[in-house]
């Protein structure tokens, strides 16, 4: 039997507000080796016509983590807890982003997380959780949608 709590299928979180922080965007950009200064230097971003530093391509994952923590402070269990993820045997299978608009520092966005469903693979040796995270701006609408497969290595099955 699997470890994921399959009764969480269909769950959608309430929108959780996250303010995109300039320093956090710059720290992330520098950590991943990003060299384009529009992601780390506000003057360079403004010179390129942007209101503030722009989030790099994989930044939605950071907003997702921030939303999980902000939600937990309000008593909203994070997705990883809801699906009963076991970090000892958890693997990241896939990650997919659809981009609909840029994300800038200084903006407050809403993060909505969803449990889309679960599947089994390799004769039950693996179980997969299918998750979705949406970044929504109050005026500009959906900015990005992330889809993520998380895998439990169950070791059984064979």
């Amino acid at each position: 039997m699997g470890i994921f709590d399959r009764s969480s299928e269909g769950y959608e979180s309430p929108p959780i507000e996250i303010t995109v922080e300039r320093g956090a965007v710059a720290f992330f950009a520098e950590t991943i080796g990003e060299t384009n200064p529009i992601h780390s230097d506000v003057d360079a971003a403004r010179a390129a016509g942007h209101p503030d530093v722009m989030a790099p391509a994989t930044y939605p994952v950071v907003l997702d983590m921030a939303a999980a923590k902000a939600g937990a402070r309000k008593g909203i269990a994070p997705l990883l807890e809801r699906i009963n993820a076991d970090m000892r045997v958890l693997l990241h299978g896939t990650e997919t982003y659809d981009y609909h608009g840029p994300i800038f520092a200084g903006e407050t966005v809403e993060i909505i997380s969803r449990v889309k469903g679960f599947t089994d693979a390799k004769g039950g040796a693996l179980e997969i959780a299918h998750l979705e995270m949406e970044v929504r701006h109050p005026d500009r609408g959906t900015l990005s949608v992330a889809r993520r497969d998380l895998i439990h290595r169950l070791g059984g099955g064979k």
Partner: protein
Amino acid sequence: MTPQTAQVGDTLPPVTFGPITRTTLALYAGASGDHNPIHIDTDFAAKAGLDDVFAHGMLSMAQLGRLATDWAGIDRLRGLSSRFTAITPVGATVTCEGRIAERLEKEGEPLLRVVLTATIDDGTQTLRGEALISAA
């Protein structure tokens, strides 16, 4: 070569990142908010039956993102996806490469489908993904 002139089979300028140290992983954990101990705590990794911690897959996917946006500009990026096919050990250097696989059109916009790979020093492919880039 620009997104407007790129042909199927053309390759993008590669991006390398690393070697990935334990410090890199600690910084990525802090910067990303992904505090999963399997990437930063050797004691936890040992209890999980692993020899060592391993790098966040998303750290390598960030390099696929750099590859795509260094070449095309982030304004042109419509989609980015990755499958994590092998773990990336501490000490690895990641090399990311991209090749134009297809020209297509979606909702009236010309797009390039770019196949992306991340490979570590010993030749193991760790990520395989795609970028969708506007060719308008």
